[in-house]
């Protein structure tokens, strides 16, 4: 069923089993999991089925830390959420990402890789990638010209990435959700208020508003916040009528530990002998898989290095990356930019580049950011059109990121020599960590960690089930629950985590 709050005249009150807030990758994945559950589910979405400027402006916010993309240009606020222009890169978090590593402060998830990985097949289905192995060698067996660099796998290996078409969740799943009799999708329904019981331990009801002033109240057995990592933290902080510090924030953790995946051009690899590099060749929307060089878990542990992967582009064909600083800052311009870019790329024929002709490869890394309490979301005195305080993002990186970049290059340079594959060159800032980050440092538009998972309420906002400590019927879905970031693009993994939460909720709700 679908209802548009903007067109509902009377004050609307609904009761349901489960109320999911936000219809992006996480919210839609959860709702789809309840299609046949025979329960009454409400899915609240801030926007409509199409992009609109006024709703998008509710994503405004201010950056005060490390230079970053303008906030309204990093997330989308309509049905489908940010998947309506995500890039479709998929690869899961690695086992090491879940470990408590002595050299990464605040690391260690309360769940194991195995518990998480059990939900990867279902998550893969949501993003329309195959459910075959994630082991590269098995995956490419028999594929002609897919030849990994012959490096020592206990130092560097080639990691498999699969590409979603990319699935636009709002387009792909709208019909099924709207046709469902047990799920009601409310569009133009912005969560504004979360009301707890007198003891402050249970959510009694939530309120949603449309920009034209309509209101609705939802009373559910369980609530799931799935609004993205900035918005999940913002809405918990802003709801501070009963708990002065905001909901779930007794220990001043909500909004802290904001993480991104720093992405930047770094060194170059010079191959000693020509070989097919088709395996590493990126051709957006034309390829279903590719590989990036990744630092092995044993080497990460031995050298105290964060998780990192490096994409390899033929140097001659790789641009100067200056475009990263010229991206539109306005929400609408940014949306148009990505839609246009995709149209153009999709219309072009597949590349006919013969990778055997190239010996020099530019590395573009995507790395784990270590959890840092000072990297955080707070509230501004400035308010949006619904009267909700805007978020302030203070993105802060640490020395560990710079040291890891230096060490992973040193190690790769060494490994290229020892394996007789090639040589490595990197710019000065890579080896001299006292120098500034280069101006082309960007992120993957990945927002993580602001309601981090930990079994100890003093160290995390949600527990191992993604339930807010101390509030048994309030749960969080999405990468805001990530304890550490890993180096993997987060959507596949956040969907897996969401489906794990969904399974837990089914046990609670059907009891």
């Amino acid at each position, binding site marked *: 069923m679908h209802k548009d709050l903007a067109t509902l005249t009377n004050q609307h009150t609904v009761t349901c089993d489960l109320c999911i807030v936000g219809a992006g990758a996480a919210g839609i994945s959860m709702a789809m999991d309840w299609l046949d559950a025979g329960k009454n589910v409400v899915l609240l979405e801030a926007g409509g089925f199409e992009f609109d400027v006024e709703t998008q402006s509710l994503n405004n916010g201010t950056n005060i830390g490390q230079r970053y993309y303008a906030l309204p240009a990093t997330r989308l606020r309509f049905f489908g959420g940010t998947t309506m222009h995500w890039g479709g890169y998929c690869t899961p978090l690695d086992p090491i990402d879940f470990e408590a590593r002595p050299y990464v402060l605040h690391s260690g998830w309360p769940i194991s890789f195995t518990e998480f990985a059990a939900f990867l097949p279902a998550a893969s289905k949501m993003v329309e990638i195959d459910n075959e192995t994630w082991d590269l060698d098995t995956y490419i067996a028999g594929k002609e010209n897919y030849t990994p660099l012959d490096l020592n796998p206990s130092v560097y290996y080639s990691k498999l990435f699969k590409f979603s078409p990319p699935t636009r969740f709002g387009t792909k799943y709208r019909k099924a959700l709207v046709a469902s009799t047990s799920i009601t999708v409310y569009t133009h329904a912005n969560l504004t208020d979360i009301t707890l019981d007198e003891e402050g331990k249970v959510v009694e009801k939530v309120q949603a508003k449309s920009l034209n002033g309509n209101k609705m109240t939802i009373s559910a057995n369980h609530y799931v916040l799935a609004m993205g990592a900035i918005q999940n933290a913002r809405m918990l902080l802003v709801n501070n009528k009963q708990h002065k510090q905001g909901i779930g924030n007794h220990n001043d953790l909500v909004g802290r530990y904001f993480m991104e995946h720093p992405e930047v051009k770094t060194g170059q690899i010079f191959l000693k002998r020509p070989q097919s590099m088709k395996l590493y060749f990126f051709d957006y929307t034309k390829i279903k898989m590719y590989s990036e060089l990744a630092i092995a878990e044993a080497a990460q542990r031995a050298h105290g290095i964060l998780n990192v992967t490096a994409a390899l582009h033929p140097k001659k064909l790789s641009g100067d990356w200056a475009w990263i600083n010229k991206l539109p800052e306005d929400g609408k311009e940014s949306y148009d930019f990505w839609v246009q870019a995709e149209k153009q790329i999709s219309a072009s024929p597949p590349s006919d580049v013969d990778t055997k002709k190239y010996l020099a490869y530019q590395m573009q890394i995507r790395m784990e950011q270590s959890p840092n309490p000072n990297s955080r979301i707070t509230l501004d005195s400035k308010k949006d059109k619904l009267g909700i305080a805007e978020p302030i993002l203070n993105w802060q990186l640490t020395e560990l990121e710079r040291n890891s970049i230096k060490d992973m290059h040193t190690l790769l340079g*060494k490994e290229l020599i020892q*394996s007789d594959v090639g040589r490595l060159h990197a710019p000065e800032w890579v080896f001299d960590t006292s120098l500034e980050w280069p101006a082309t440092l960007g992120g993957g538009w990945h927002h993580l960690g602001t309601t981090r998972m930990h079994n100890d309420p003093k160290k995390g906002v949600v527990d191992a089930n993604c339930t807010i400590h101390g509030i048994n019927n309030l749960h969080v879905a999405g990468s805001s629950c990530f304890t550490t970031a890993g180096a993997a693009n987060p959507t596949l993994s956040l969907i897996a985590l969401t489906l794990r939460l969904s399974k837990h909720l089914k046990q609670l709700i059907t009891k």
Partner: protein
Amino acid sequence: MITRRMFMRSCSLSAVFLPVLACVTEDKETDVTWFLSETEITAIGKAYAQNSFSFIDKDMLVISGWVITLAEAEVCKKKYLESA
């Protein structure tokens, strides 16, 4: 063909692969022209002559942004001194 990578994978015992590494590194490559231009050779040679580099291993160093072997740095130095 069994690649070195596949070989390592099938026997993760360091006792097995360490001697292999030793073989690879023993026979040093001293031709640098396959990855360095004349200008880079001179720059590296000069930096090496001026002790402006850091060791990352007993026989490998980072110099002018390159990770190379000691033998390669020596070759660059020789060429630099010859051209000076």
